[in-house]
């Protein structure tokens, strides 16, 4: 598993008090892990700080609400980690 996933899983485990072994790359943050919107902002804060990025949560939420993107695209952890890697790469470019 990627270093990004390990960092994200550790953040989720600590922030939401979820046993680390229950968090897999295929976990859906909301449907599988039961993370609510307030807790997700907590996670986003920790991710922003850990990776030096700004997760575009408002844009993602709008896309999902308007049916332009499936929630899985952003909230399944392996997909979330891919987005994080893209944001880190874009920042470095």
């Amino acid at each position, binding site marked *: 598993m990627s270093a990004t996933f390990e960092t994200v899983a550790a953040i989720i485990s600590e922030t939401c008090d979820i046993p680390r072994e229950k968090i897999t790359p295929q976990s859906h943050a909301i449907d599988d892990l039961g993370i609510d919107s307030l807790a997700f902002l907590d996670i986003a804060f920790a991710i922003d700080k850990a990776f030096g990025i700004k997760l575009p949560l408002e844009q993602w*939420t709008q896309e999902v609400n308007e049916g332009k993107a499936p929630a899985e695209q952003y909230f399944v952890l392996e997909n979330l980690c891919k987005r994080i890697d893209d944001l880190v790469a874009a920042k470095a470019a």
Partner: protein
Amino acid sequence: MRLEYFDMIDQVASFVPAEKRIVTRSTVPSKSPVFEGHFPGHPLVPGVLLTETMAQASGYLLLALNGLSQMPFLMMVDKARFRTFVEPDAVLDVSAELVHEGSGYAATKAKITIDGKPICDAELRFRLMPFPADMRALMEARIAAIGLNPEAA
């Protein structure tokens, strides 16, 4: 300050958009119904109201920086420390600085001092949301009343 109305900030002392920082000033009232219970014969400003004071200074900072485009709602208080008592008639310097601007949320560090002496401090986080009906006008009036100029941002 009007403690019982949660009207905690009297005026803005300085607002520095480039530093994303605000300093406000508040004078604790001589009398308040709050002191009748906290505590009889020994009036002290409750820590929860000092936290609210730091949150309001942070909130005004965020409103000024975002040009009143979104309303900040307190969602987390972290590492709050209350270092000494605050009594009636105390003049509080309440400062707040933006430490992280996320998507849909923001984090600040805030503190209160009296004559330079640390009183309390905390790390605060706010959810940024569309204004509920009529609240924008209320905030505009409050901002004008304390002498804050969002245009400076």
